[in-house]
């Protein structure tokens, strides 16, 4: 494991008004619909080999900002959100700060701002459920359908992630699924079929995004002096991506390649 496990409870249970964040993006157009303010929170339990932001893993890293400050930033940008956009919380892993995010999303809704959560689905408890109730759109990253491969890829299993999908489906609220396509790791045809088949009966999935692996995060691994297992992994070919899209489309609607 490239980064030690951490006890993440504190992150959720410390002061309710303070979020630990990695960074902010004010003109996000790739994490949910429309133009969005994207809050990348700090801290993650997954250890994905292809992580683009390894500097967002450490729960002690990043900076503390008040929910007030984030809300006022969002309000200043609200005109640009238009009819589709809003705020997305991504990470890191947002669910590690789920209790605080309940509060944050409530405040955004009070100001008429759409909320979106981009999560790997690591934690499912009452707080998670409450947060999902306040999440207008869930972007759920299901990184692999096979538990062993999932573990090899992320260091943890996918059981909770799949349960969250199930829970979301039961609430009838919309979600998008996201799948990072990594040559040699997530491109096995049998598992692509299995992945898509698993969700084929779902009614709440509005879109499926295939995200091609790229090497733009490489320099961060080097900066952090960590062994980067995918240093030699190429970006997927267009053919491979189209093939994955075709497989997914056998079971699911509205599959797109990012």
């Amino acid at each position, binding site marked *: 494991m490239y980064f030690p496990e951490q006890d993440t409870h504190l992150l959720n249970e410390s002061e309710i008004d303070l979020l630990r964040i990695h960074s902010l993006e*004010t003109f*996000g*157009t790739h994490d949910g619909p429309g133009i969005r303010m994207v809050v990348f929170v700090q801290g993650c339990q997954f250890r994905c080999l292809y992580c683009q932001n390894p500097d967002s893993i450490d729960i002690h890293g990043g900076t503390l900002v008040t929910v007030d400050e984030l809300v006022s930033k969002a309000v*200043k*940008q609200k005109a*640009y959100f*238009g009819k*589709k956009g809003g705020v997305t919380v991504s990470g890191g892993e947002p669910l590690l700060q789920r209790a605080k995010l309940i509060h944050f999303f409530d405040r955004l809704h009070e100001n008429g701002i759409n909320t979106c959560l981009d999560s790997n689905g690591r934690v499912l408890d009452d707080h998670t459920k409450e947060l999902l109730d306040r999440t207008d759109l869930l972007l759920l990253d299901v990184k692999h359908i096979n538990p062993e491969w999932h573990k090899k890829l992320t260091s943890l299993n996918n059981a909770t992630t799949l349960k969250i999908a199930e829970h979301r489906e039961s609430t009838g609220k919309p979600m998008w699924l996201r799948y990072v396509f990594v040559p040699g790791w997530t491109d096995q045809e049998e598992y692509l079929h299995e992945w898509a088949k698993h969700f084929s009966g779902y009614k709440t999935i509005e879109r499926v995004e295939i995200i091609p692996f790229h090497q*733009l995060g490489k320099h961060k691994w080097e900066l952090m002096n960590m062994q980067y297992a995918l240093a030699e992994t190429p970006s997927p070919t267009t053919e491979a991506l189209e093939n994955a899209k075709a497989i997914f489309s056998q079971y699911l609607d509205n599959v*797109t390649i990012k």
Partner: protein
Amino acid sequence: MENLVKSLELKVGVWKDSINVHDFVLQNLKSYEGDASFLVGPSYKTTQLWNVCKESLLKERQNDGCLAIDTEVISNITSFGPGYIQKENETIVGLQTDELLKRAMKPFGGIKLVQSAVAEKGLKVSDRVVDIFNYAKNHNQAVFDAYDGEIKTFRSKHVLTGLPDNYARGRIIGDFRRVALYGIDRLIAEKKSDKGKVSGDMTDAKVRLREEIAEQINALQDMKKMALSYGIDISKPATNAQEAVQFTYLGYLSAVKEQDGAAMSLGNVSSFLDVYIQNDIEAGIIDEEQAQEYIDQFVMKLRLVRHLRPGAYDAIFGGDPTWVTEAIGGQFHDGRTKVTKTSFRFLQTLYNLGASPEPNLTVLWSENLPQGFKDFCAQVSIDTSSLQYENDDLMRDNRGSDDYGIACCVSYQEIGKSIQHFGARANLPKALLLSLNGGREESEGVQVVGGISEMDDEVLDYDTVMKSFKKTLAEVARVYAKSMYIIHYMHDKYYYERAQMSLIDSNPKIDIAYGAAGISIIADSLSAIKYAKVTPVRNEFGLTIDFNIEGDFPKFGNDDDRVDDIAKEVTKIFIDELRKHKTYKNSTPTLSLLTITSNVMYGSNTGATPDGRKAGEAFAPGANPMHGRDENGAIASLNSVSKLNYNDAQDGISYTFTMVPKSLGNNLEEQVGNLTTTLDAYFGRNAHHLNVNVLNKETLLDAYNHPENYPQLTIRVSGYAVNFVRLSKAHQLEVISRTFHSTM
């Protein structure tokens, strides 16, 4: 011909009895609320013709940007015989000279400038023409006869720069639609009647006006002659679409044959022309391909407009621009949209003929524009980076008319009813340095402004600096106003725009368009003095040569009121000062925050500033935040600029915005949606202008190194667009160094 005349069915209104194109458009325009799916590609003739042009354009570029010069003829409306590109394929005819891209001499702005422009190309102005100016006076000469020492010092020390005292002022937009709607004979009759009304005891103003109208009548007569040389009779109104386009163009052509004003806008002709086009289509006389052909060929002609410019001109107006600015879209006061199918057809030329800086297509953006038009504009921006946007809701409301064009880059001008006198701009950071140096210019110590106390403070104090700066601005405004009075007095006297003015009401309202450069440097400098610790480094003569800044300070472009309010305040101080002074012909002062490409030149002539900008470093263009200082993303940057108050800068607040395509969204559909949302939001906050570039830095770097591969690469700079490869290398690098908003 008989049935064509019958086919033109027009609603009658007051436009019949008096010259009032606005009323005609109001009565007859058919709004189009649909999308772009009706558009067609170029016709065979258009393609043939454009291929010939492309060859000549390539030759022009290879020949150092100038294909040929006529050194014998002083250009006016009738001095050249007809010129063609390829007669059999031309649906719309008319060239400035008798040959494609051949440039002509218009020496009444300044014979010396013409001589140096011609000499730079290894040629010589004919003896006959040189000799004429041994007897005749020109604008440049006259202005310098009247200038005083103070103005000359402000000018030579780069406090006031780019003044139209050695080139033609431009910016006056003729209502070229009048030629098509009324025909020349009617226009002459109206002018004669106007002249008759200037009677009674004479005053300077009346004498001047009588002479001006007489000149206008001469110009109208010349237009008729020039048109006849092409076999076209424009004495009567146009009776069909082809004539409407052709007549309107001949009006514009007359202007650019005789004048070489820095910017000579076209106005807002597209929806006017649509009345005729729509009529002919409905009558079954023409089809969509024919309609598009008229517009493609008209626009092609506008792309070929050329003026003779000396090399030095490039520093202030880089890339050989002509500003054939056409305002497209917008709304009527009554809530109807002015968007027509011909609004779309104009934009379609950017596909049919490829991207291009000219004509300078400007979309008048309103929240209520039809969605189909908004989407098409966004798509065109994403594909070509050739459009700019201005806030129609703001201008209509603030300035009053719903029939206006854009003079030069960004300035509102009611068509046919008002004009503006161009005032170039004052260098605000230079003024700030004067106020820190006891009124002395920072590089050589020449005393420019009197009555400013020397400042020997270790650390700069905000209140002291502001007090001194205000005093300096008052002095700059005083001298600036004086210079403008002289310039426009002399321009009217020696280089009067009789062609444009003949198509404008005889006694129009006039704005005097002052300008200011470097507002973001001023805001950041004063913010640094207020919120950080700024210590000037002074040389042996006590002049500031650098500044040490300790601590951080808010910077313009980050949606931070602490600094954004300073930018607002200084703008207001300056325009309030300018408003105190007398103006030529009682014109109304306005102010622009705009630089054209002179931001590079301003930078090289300005010492280090208290915001940390080094001596010689380029200014940001227009009202842009300084490069790389807008660290909180695109929206914060847009928000800062949108706070600047249009009331204090009615000549325009220019913001050039560059986005990487991927950052706008994952695919074209998302990108279009996000760009239209951005424009709605930005203008919804009362912002005035936005240049939109959608391109990658890598593309520009590649074009910098391999210009031959990018003949039509177009980018928006400050209030206009240029062929990137026709910019100087210094300008190209400056553009590359700008902030690209990107999510990567």
